[in-house]
């Protein structure tokens, strides 16, 4: 099968290479660099944020490819839906496994808030986004042939401004130990306890959606869950988090899950290896002290 990678990164290029022949579309210099090593790279000069430009480029090339593969991002979901409708093609997001069989694609993805996997057999052409961390191979390196392309933007909207988001400088997906905080914390200042505990354990601080999205006590790079980051630490310690399915969806791959909650009926205890029923304000200071002692 022939695959076209859009928003090229290593995982998407590798996923495409497992299906056969492949090419990449690059908009702007950063993507041109990321696509290096792909046999063919279509180079579009223009604003990487212009979704209409990308859509036009893909629609122009789509006839030559069976599958469009992209990393799972908000922008790839946006253009993926739009292009699929124009191509009358299926759009399958957050794919965790992928292979070609008898001219069709066999794919798996999580559904129902990551409580089940769906196995699907899709016709081509198809558009896919791949979940992070599931296609971790090395794409073969070819000498790249660059083809210049100058499509007209389909113009979905006009960009009137861009503000970068605040960052807490964490890469929560890579943390081995995560101390994660939820609405059980009453004030922003109280999060200092979680940072102290994380420091004593040698970990990072994560959080539930309301802490980042509604209260904005932490930047979004800390946010764990279905709509946040998917994490896979050795230890995930959830403090004052109730354990709603959308939160659990982000921590399924953790090795050990521990939870502290003062409500013995909190759902998080169903998903935890070790659960402590206690007021976080009483136990966390003790844990900080004891964890620091263990280190010595």
């Amino acid at each position, binding site marked *: 099968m022939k695959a076209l990678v859009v928003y090229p990164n290593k995982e998407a290029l590798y996923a495409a290479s497992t299906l056969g022949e492949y090419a990449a579309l690059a908009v702007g210099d950063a993507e041109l660099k990321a696509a290096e090593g792909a046999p063919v790279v279509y180079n579009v000069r223009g604003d990487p*944020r212009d979704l209409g430009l990308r859509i036009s480029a893909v629609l122009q090339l789509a006839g030559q490819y069976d599958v469009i593969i992209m990393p799972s991002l*908000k922008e790839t*979901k*946006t253009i993926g*839906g*739009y292009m*699929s*409708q*124009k191509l009358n093609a*299926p*759009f399958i*997001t*957050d794919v965790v496994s992928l292979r070609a069989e008898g001219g069709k694609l066999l794919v798996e993805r*999580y*559904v*129902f*808030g990551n*409580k*089940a996997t*769906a*196995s*699907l*057999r*899709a*016709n081509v052409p198809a558009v896919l986004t791949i979940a992070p961390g599931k296609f971790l191979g090395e794409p073969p390196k070819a000498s790249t042939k660059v083809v210049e392309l100058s499509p007209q933007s389909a*113009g*979905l*909207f006009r*960009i*009137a*401004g*861009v*503000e*970068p*988001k605040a960052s807490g400088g964490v890469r929560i997906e890579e943390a081995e*130990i995560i101390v994660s905080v939820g609405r059980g914390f009453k004030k922003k200042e109280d999060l200092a306890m979680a940072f102290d505990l994380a420091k004593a354990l040698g970990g990072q601080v994560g959080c539930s959606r309301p802490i980042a*999205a*509604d209260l904005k006590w932490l930047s979004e790079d800390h946010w764990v869950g*279905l709509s946040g980051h998917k994490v896979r630490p*050795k*230890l995930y310690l959830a403090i004052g988090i109730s354990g*709603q*399915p*959308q939160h659990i969806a982000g921590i399924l791959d953790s*090795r*050990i899950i521990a939870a502290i909650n003062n409500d013995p009926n909190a759902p998080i*205890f*169903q998903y935890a*290896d*070790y*659960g*402590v*029923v*206690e*007021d976080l304000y009483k*136990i966390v200071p*003790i844990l900080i002290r*004891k*964890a620091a002692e*263990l280190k010595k």
Partner: protein
Amino acid sequence: MKIAVLVKPALDTSQLRVKEGRVVIEETPLKINDIDRNAIEEAIKLKGNDKAYAISVLKWPPLQKRIQEAENLLREALAMGLDEAYLVADEGLIGSDQSATAKAIAAVINKVGADLVLAAEASIDNYTGQVPPRVAAELGWPLITYARELRVEGGKAIAKRDLEDSVETAEAQLPAVVSVTREINQPRIPTLLAIRAAMKKPVNKLTLADLGIKPDVKVELVGYKPVVIQRKRVIIKDGTPEEKADKLLQYLRQEGVI
């Protein structure tokens, strides 16, 4: 401003029924997709003296039972303040991919008319975020996704798009399709009076034939497998906070994670 709101009767994933290692869709209840309530709220704020209506496409079997269930859910949307609802229910849509869903939605919009289409960033059961872009493509209208703020001014939708590491200000000429995030507003809880009034508002039922659409299946479901979560579920609930802390640290050390 006339507004169409896309309201998905979604599987209530917190009540997912699993029997003998199989997901039993037929016995899992439906609910209004959570974030669609934010889209409804935004529509009620923006509609002014014009009307705002819901469009729902049924995707889950068994059809007959689900029609009644979806109608009850649409009464909730009407109680929040929408004026009427369109429910597309057809065997041909059960198990179809989202391209037929988008065609059905676009057909209703073409029939009833709209200056603005509001939807949510994603549905809880599928979580793909593809239906709003598909509807925009089908209608040939501008599209703004992931809006966490929205206003309409001089015939334009102006929104803050909430992306992973930046916020974009986007402008699009109406008519347009906009998908919103959970953070855009706080959905209202209908009063008893509004709930009673909603019983009298129209819920119009449509089939694919009414809309002149033929579905075709491009994705075949091989099966659903429940994700089995096997955790030890050791609960520490007795003793002083000090003793509990000791126990937890001891377990975590035994596991070799600290």
